[in-house]
């Protein structure tokens, strides 16, 4: 009776009874008037939430330690130039994806121009280090400032817009940044900036040093973004994503909260830009085009919006898959495209979706028979 082609929910439980139109399923859980871009999922009544939720595993300190250890160990396993290069690229992409996840996954703001912040970070670091001779490490505070400024400039007037209008505005912003970098002399025009220094000489091969540095920074970023998603601010993001009006009625200043998400995303993007600039040694506008923004967004959605482990997996897939298909030439993106469709059909919520859950500590300790509450 159950149609095997129907998407299943991640917990492996069955969907509601088969229904005659694909749309019936879709609509049940959606409120048409208030279309949050993050959308909502399957009829989730059937979803089971075990106490071992993925996001809890990932936020446990042991998991974090495991990631860092694994990451740091990689060069001992394979220190080939190619391995390190694509591993570093993938890690930078992970950082971008968890940053965008704050904006899109947590807060539900559709951002199609995220590469703008990546560019701002890369160019700020590149410019200060090449033209002005700063050590790369010293550029980081400047990058954070620039990313925040960028976030303010574009976010301030536009965060009130509804999702698709926000999408086009961010897309436009991304293009503006890229084209401006392409047209200005100080940014090196179409060739961009080159000869960007690395973090310094630590007695190791420079690509190994860069890899290690990236691994540490990205691990910290992943943990930070995962933890950010859980506290007061993280909850507020989700409230805003779910229902802005209801959030307002709870005293949540939705505009400020969106802003916080946007600026947080900007900082992540900017820092990823620094890593990218160092890793590439040369940066130029084509690295920050719309396709990049789209790919980062795809990493977030493919992995599972709002789910840190999912987004990490998504980023690894989106970053490494085309690299693995490198030999396929023009078939490369054909295969990539088809794979994307196939994956999404089988896992519509993403590879490792977010399941709303409570930590074990949140279970009620002792039921109060006679509630006594002081107002």
């Amino acid at each position, binding site marked *: 009776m159950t149609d095997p082609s129907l998407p299943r929910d991640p917990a492996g439980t069955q969907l509601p009874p088969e229904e005659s139109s*694909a*749309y019936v399923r879709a609509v049940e859980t959606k409120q*048409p008037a208030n279309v949050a871009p993050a959308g909502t999922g399957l009829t989730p009544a059937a979803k089971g939430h075990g106490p071992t939720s993925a996001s809890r595993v990932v936020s446990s300190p042991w998991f974090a330690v495991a990631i860092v250890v694994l990451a740091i160990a990689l060069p001992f396993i394979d220190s080939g130039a190619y391995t390190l290069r694509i591993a570093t690229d993938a890690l930078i992409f992970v950082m971008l994806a968890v940053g965008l996840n704050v904006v899109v996954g947590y807060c539900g703001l559709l951002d199609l121009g995220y590469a703008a912040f990546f560019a701002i970070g890369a160019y700020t670091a590149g410019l200060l280090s090449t033209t002005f001779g700063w050590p790369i490490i010293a550029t980081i505070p400047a990058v954070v400032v620039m990313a925040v400024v960028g976030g303010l400039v574009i976010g301030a007037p536009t965060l009130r817009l509804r999702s698709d209008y926000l*999408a*086009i505005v961010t897309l436009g912003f991304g293009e503006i940044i890229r084209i401006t970098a392409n047209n200005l002399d100080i940014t090196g025009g179409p060739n961009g900036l080159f000869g960007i220094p690395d973090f310094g000489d630590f007695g190791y091969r420079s690509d190994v040093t860069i890899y290690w540095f990236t691994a540490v920074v990205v691990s910290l970023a992943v943990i930070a973004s995962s933890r950010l998603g859980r506290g007061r601010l993280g909850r507020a993001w989700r409230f805003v994503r779910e229902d802005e009006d209801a959030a307002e009625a709870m005293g949540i200043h939705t505009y400020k909260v969106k802003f916080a998400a946007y600026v947080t995303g900007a900082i992540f993007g900017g820092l990823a830009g620094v890593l990218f600039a160092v890793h590439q040694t040369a940066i130029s506008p084509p690295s920050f085009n719309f396709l990049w923004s789209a790919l980062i967004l795809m990493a977030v959605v493919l992995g599972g919006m709002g789910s840190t482990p999912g987004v990490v997996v998504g980023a690894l897939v989106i970053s490494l898959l085309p690299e693995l298909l490198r030999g396929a030439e023009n078939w490369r993106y054909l295969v990539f495209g088809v794979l994307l*469709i196939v994956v999404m059909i089988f896992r519509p919520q993403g590879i490792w979706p977010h399941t709303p859950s409570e930590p074990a500590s949140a279970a009620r300790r002792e039921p109060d028979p006679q509630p006594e509450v002081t107002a």
Partner: protein
Amino acid sequence: MDYVLQLILNGLFVGTFYALVALGYSMVYGIIKLLNFAHGDIYMLGGFVGFTLLTVGSGALAGGGGIIALVVVMALAMVATGLVGLVLERVAYRPLRSAPRLSVLITAVGASFALEYGVAVGYGPNPRAYPVTVGGGAVHLLGARITYAQLVMMAIAVILMFGLDTLVRRTRSGRAMRAISQDPRACLLMGVNVDQVISRTFFIGSALAGAAGVMAGAYYGKIDFLMGFIIGLKAFTAAVIGGIGNIRGAVLGAIVLGLLESFGTAWLGSQWRDVFAFAFLILFLTVRPTGLLGERVTERV
């Protein structure tokens, strides 16, 4: 004066092409809120289908007038791209109706890659020159210049816009389309075959894009496998300026974008054109957050 007029004419004409693509974009968006990133590639596909038909049929058409051949080919290409749109919806979008909205964005981008590189593999990555092109005379209007081909194409766009607008606003089907965008489940209870209406919308939208693809090939004389990418983005932008989901808005937005680009080029130079257009768009949306003709409803609480 003639210069300004020429700029306006340029803008109008470029806007016409954007409009043809934006119409389908907006229709599809209007009904299932999908940012169909593969739409531009359907336009590209239209160009290639037309190319193939014209090449294969060149012998048969050699004698006949190029224009008649073109019209026939365009009709066939519309059917072909319409069907591709149908299949795309069936395979890549329908299975994800219950998924988060952005999941469909992924399959749309996936479909876009698949179409682009499918054509790149099939036809090779080199651009192709169109076998039949429209040239013809030009009208001079107060010193500005516009060709007959351009006039015809603008007329086609306007007619299509009115046709579609009437369809969506006045007919039973159109009402159902708008209703589906708000509450598909309730539509079922009204007796609407939701899947069928959605399929129909994809067919129409894709056929329009296909027609635009053939026109582009015939007018500009060149097609390539990535030609849909930029125009897809522009169509999206145009649809948003106009108020996304709104048919008249799509056309109006496309024309505004065309004019912005035309004047942006003139005032700031080609390299700043898109910066000018996007900056204008951002400013505009901050004062008018739902686009030119977008509905402004006070959401009820």
